[in-house]
């Protein structure tokens, strides 16, 4: 992968801030991102797609008399940068004053860039041959796992290098580089009638040494397709539901989304009015942490230059508080939690870091073993989460639990409840936490949910 990550993003961002100041902005900050993306996809052991690109773009925010505007461009020529500044100032002048608009307080910003091991030196050296070999190994392990694996949606191996820079007119200037690698595959197992059951599996990490072995990823995808063979539609009932770790990881994302300080300001979250209250079973502990070494959700400073930290979200079932960027903190009289995300375009927004559902002390076998009749969830589908009310209703597939054992596969059912009830009904948390990208989660059991089926 031919790549040169240079200091250029930092220089570009600094230049935009200088130009904005010279043109009359009261305050400004600029983001620049340079990246290289490479991926190789194979299907049925034949090369299907090779892509490699380098990319660069910049974004500027200006504030004049409390009026703010953002402008971004993928053209970084001198003329385009000058035009970007002019456009930003013009837009800001016709905007309206917002008393809370502004940069982060310099006292909250990072003075140095902590070393979080986000860059794997091995990744820039991965050439197309290597990516091809990994994708082939992943898919062949899946195809060879069983005679009933009859088709493939393809396997791919991807690598990304990215360099992020943020400069603001208060003097903050920070930059860091990061890498990520991923490998994944989707395969289909064939029923006796010729119809197919598909499943995919993948691994995604900042460093190559943490990435799962491609063959293990392939075998897991095959096993998951095979265990859905013979799936039938389940019955309508109210039963205990066990969330396998990968599905349980989604619960951490739901809590983090509902804990957004922006959603709180809009009162569009079911966690509004619940700070310091028992919103879940005492077994549940969830932490947002951007400071972990080498993790996908880690960052040395946030999208406003603020120091990142560990933010407990749920401790023994008690909701600890919301995540804030500087803007939402100001308008709700709170403090930033170092949770500003930042893209090239638009204002900072609230974004969590790594999310960790802490493991409990029950083995997954014991969690399943205690159930006479219930659903082991392996798939969720659709968008059925209402963050304002907490109503949850989503399509599902999984395995029926009968007399404490995983029995026959089920599909085309729906699981539903209200999230505040569902979190209270967590009656077991597994000891088997696993990482899925930037989220770690164990098996979780809820004592009762509504399953809709036949």
């Amino acid at each position: 992968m031919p790549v040169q990550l240079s200091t250029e993003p930092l220089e570009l961002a600094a230049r935009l801030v200088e130009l904005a100041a010279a043109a009359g902005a009261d305050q400004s900050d600029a983001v620049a991102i340079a990246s290289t993306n490479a991926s190789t996809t194979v299907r049925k052991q034949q090369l299907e797609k090779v892509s490699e690109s380098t990319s660069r773009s910049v974004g500027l925010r200006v504030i004049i008399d409390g009026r703010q505007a953002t402008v971004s461009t993928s053209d970084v020529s001198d003329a385009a940068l000058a035009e970007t500044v002019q456009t930003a100032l013009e837009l800001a002048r016709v905007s309206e004053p917002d008393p809370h608009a502004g940069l982060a307080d310099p006292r909250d910003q990072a003075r140095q860039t902590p070393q979080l091991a986000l860059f794997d030196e091995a990744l820039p050296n991965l050439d197309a041959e290597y990516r091809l070999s990994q994708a082939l190994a992943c898919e062949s392990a899946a195809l060879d796992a069983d005679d009933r694996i009859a088709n493939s949606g393809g396997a791919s191996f991807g690598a990304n290098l990215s360099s992020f820079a943020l400069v603001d007119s208060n003097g903050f200037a920070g930059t860091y580089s990061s890498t990520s690698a991923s490998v994944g595959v989707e395969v289909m197992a064939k029923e006796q009638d010729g119809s197919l059951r598909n499943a995919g599996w993948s691994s995604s990490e900042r460093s190559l040494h943490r990435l799962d072995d491609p063959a293990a990823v392939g075998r897991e995808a095959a096993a998951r397709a095979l265990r859905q063979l013979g799936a039938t539609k389940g019955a309508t009932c109210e039963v205990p539901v066990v969330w396998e770790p990968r599905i349980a990881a989604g619960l951490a994302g739901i809590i983090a989304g509902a804990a957004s300080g922006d959603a709180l300001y809009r009162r569009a979250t079911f966690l509004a009015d619940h700070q310091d209250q028992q919103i879940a079973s005492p077994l549940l502990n969830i932490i947002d942490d951007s400071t972990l070494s080498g993790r996908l959700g880690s960052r040395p400073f946030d999208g406003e230059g603020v120091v990142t930290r560990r933010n407990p979200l749920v401790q023994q079932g008690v909701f600890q508080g919301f995540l804030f960027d500087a803007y939402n903190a100001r308008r709700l009289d709170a403090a930033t939690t170092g949770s500003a995300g930042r893209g090239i375009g638009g204002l900072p927004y609230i974004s969590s870091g790594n999310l960790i559902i802490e493991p409990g002390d029950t083995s997954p076998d014991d969690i399943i073993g205690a159930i006479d009749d219930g659903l082991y969830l392996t798939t969720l589908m659709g968008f059925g989460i209402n963050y304002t009310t907490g109503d949850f209703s989503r399509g599902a597939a999984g395995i029926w639990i009968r007399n404490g054992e995983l029995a026959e596969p089920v599909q085309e059912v729906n699981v539903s409840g209200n999230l505040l009830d569902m979190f209270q009904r967590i009656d077991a948390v597994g000891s088997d936490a696993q990482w899925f990208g930037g989220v770690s989660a164990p098996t979780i059991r809820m004592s009762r949910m509504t399953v809709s089926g036949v």
Partner: protein
Amino acid sequence: MSDSPTDVIGFYAQQLGVDEAAAESVLSAALGRGGSFAELYFEHKRSGSLSFEDQRVKATQASLSQGVGIRVVEGDAIGYAYTEDLSLDAMRRAAHTAAQIAHGSDDAEPIDVTAASYDADRYAIDAPSTATPLAEKVDLLRRADDAARAWNSSIARVDVNMVDEEKRVLIVRSDGRMVADYQPLLRFNVSCLSEIDGERRSARWGGGGRMGMVYFDSQSPESLAEEAARQAVLQQEAREAPAGTFPVVLAAGDSGILLHEAVGHGLEADFNRKQTSNYSNRIGHAVASELVTVIDDATLDRSRGSVNVDDEGELAGRNLLIENGQLAAYMQDRISSDHFKVTPSGNGRRQSFRHAPMPRMTNTYMTAGADAPEDLVRRVDFGIYCKAFSGGQVNITNGDFVFSVTEGYLIENGQITAPIRDVNLIGNGPDVLSKVTGVGHDLEMSDGRWTCGKAGQSVPVGVGIPTVLVSGMTVGGTQMRPGAGMSA
């Protein structure tokens, strides 16, 4: 005025230095290792966004995104590279990268590019909204905000935003074809929160299309805002939805999401070429009730999913997918149409120059039937009436699909009665379409608010449907009905 294809070609030559000679040079580099076909997709997109909250403008945003995506095809395989740098050197470098997919030598014929004219002009506009003075747009946002608050005293928050873009695309191929298109897109969104005694309910509504400010000639900001407010207030009285399998009546318009998920994705030819769709090898077979005819139509006037030419440079058209229940055709891109030995259907689309094209829907709808919509409701003893949705998803391989209902009602004894809380519906594509037992005469297209995601790429689409009765679909509510199941 919108640019004609000739204007777009002139824009690239004069503003960005991308002319026929440059394109020929880059294409030659792309075929330098003997690929069988190469294509350049140039995109120049200006977009803007304006958001309004707390009764004032919160943020204004503008962005420029430009670059070229270079694809080299060798059999079923592709090499892809893009660059934002449109200098000849940078483009040729990217072309060499994309050329890696092939392993032959440079024995290609010289490429002679010629601008192709075509007979389609589906979204010409008088004035691009991206050039409209901001104050004029702010006025629309303020009118929406006022109208939502005036609708009901429980409306505690209103957020309005408007996003628009003008995109100039130029596609140049190694077969010499060069086509250009100017594609406007506008969308206006309102979200409302109703709060009564601490009980909060929210709703979103919006619309738009491939047009400029003319959108507001037929749709006022007030009507969009009042609709969002009405749905939020309605939710205050909503009951728990039932759990189990019941008849479902889908209202005309947005319910077209059913088709998009139940059959649309499954008929995209890439999945069928790979035989990973549950509709693979089913052309000519019955896949739905005889009442069902489904069309994907890129030609609708100024609709969000319409295009003149697709992102591979093929003329986009109107394609019959299912005729009276029988599967007629898949939606094709270049690679799949080569595989199936059919003409490309103009469905090769992509999110941007950073993405390779694949078969995608444009505007997908079911044709009108003979039933009176109210008769379809009357035929149901107990079921669900669905009117507004937040999204859907499908598993292509096993055919299971879902969609989430944000405005729904119980049907009791042939009458629409109480509103129900948000609920997800799940079904299997061919099974649900075989259970279509009534189709209304009231075909309606949704307003332009839908975006379709596939393999990490988003494209604007349209959906449409007349009122439809499905005799049974699984409703994922929380209310157990007597006799509807067992309890552990």
